[in-house]
């Protein structure tokens, strides 16, 4: 386990949910239906996970410094409304759970101007040892930050769209 990280960490944001990430629907994300393609919702959410990871102290320098990586194990997306090219996006991220090497996150994607919920993403991200490419515990400063983030996130209500199992409801 890494006891420290050899770079300066950004100022910790403990506001719950985390609401710092913004994005825009770029032309490459639009498909033949004239809206953002399903896959690029996942790309956009992955960037929101990146923002959460940077707040934990795990950014590009973590990978480039050959210290470690973070891998997504599993992800669940609800597609609630369409988004068109150029639409501005705003994300919120709630920490639902964490352990020694994983975080369980819940993102919501909103149209930043019209305010509607476009999509949600529940995801599990795991810390990876750079050399072995296998799971390993978070570095110590990351665990400390995660503990501080958890203190403010743990009181948030569980989102209605978290913990979904897919199926056709019979009427």
């Amino acid at each position: 386990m890494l006891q420290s990280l050899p770079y300066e960490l950004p100022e910790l944001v403990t506001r719950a949910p985390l609401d710092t990430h913004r994005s825009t629907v770029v032309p490459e994300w639009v498909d033949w239906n004239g809206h953002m393609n399903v896959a690029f919702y996942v790309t956009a959410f992955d960037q929101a996970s990146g923002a959460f990871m940077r707040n934990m102290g795990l950014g590009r320098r973590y990978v480039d410094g050959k210290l470690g990586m973070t891998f997504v194990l599993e992800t669940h997306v609800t597609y609630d409304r369409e988004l068109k090219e150029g639409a501005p996006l705003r994300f919120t991220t709630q920490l639902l759970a964490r352990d020694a090497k994983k975080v369980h996150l819940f993102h919501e994607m909103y149209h930043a101007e019209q305010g509607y919920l476009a999509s949600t993403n529940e995801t599990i991200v795991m810390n990876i040892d750079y050399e072995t490419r296998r799971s390993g515990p978070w570095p110590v400063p990351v665990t400390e930050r995660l503990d501080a983030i958890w203190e403010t996130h743990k009181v948030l209500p569980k989102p209605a769209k978290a913990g979904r199992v897919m199926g056709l409801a019979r009427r």
Partner: protein
Amino acid sequence: MIDLALGAPLDRHPATVLRDWIDWNGHMNVGYYVVAFDKATDTLCQQFGCGWEYTRDEIGMTFVLEAHVTYDREVKEGDGLRITTQILDHDAKRIHYIHMMYHATEGYLAATNELMLMNIDYKTRRSAPWPDFAMERIEKLAAAHAALPRPAQAGRLIGIKKK
């Protein structure tokens, strides 16, 4: 319309991991697994006449309502992939199915993608029943897939297990 492939699961979708799909971790990025799976959805929809031409000819569209991905193993640039598709359920407007992505030469399971897809009216952009030609074929495919065991990755709930 193309000949209906009634082998179960549907096994008509080879693919290759492109350079653009690789991220700074040196493997296929999570978003591009879904790009690859979405192309396999097109292959499925072509089976019942709701592929690219369906939208090009302004007849209808298909929208994904919900998706669940398990990332089981890494794949690298240039790797050959094989994606199979199993229909789990369907109704008048929707299909519930799961894709399995395998490394084409090494054979291992790389990822799975469970999806709910809905038929959309082209003009209103709202849900609508499958056209008759599509429903007839969906029922034949679903019947062919009915005997398959349900994959363990279907119907998963996300969470961190408490020890």
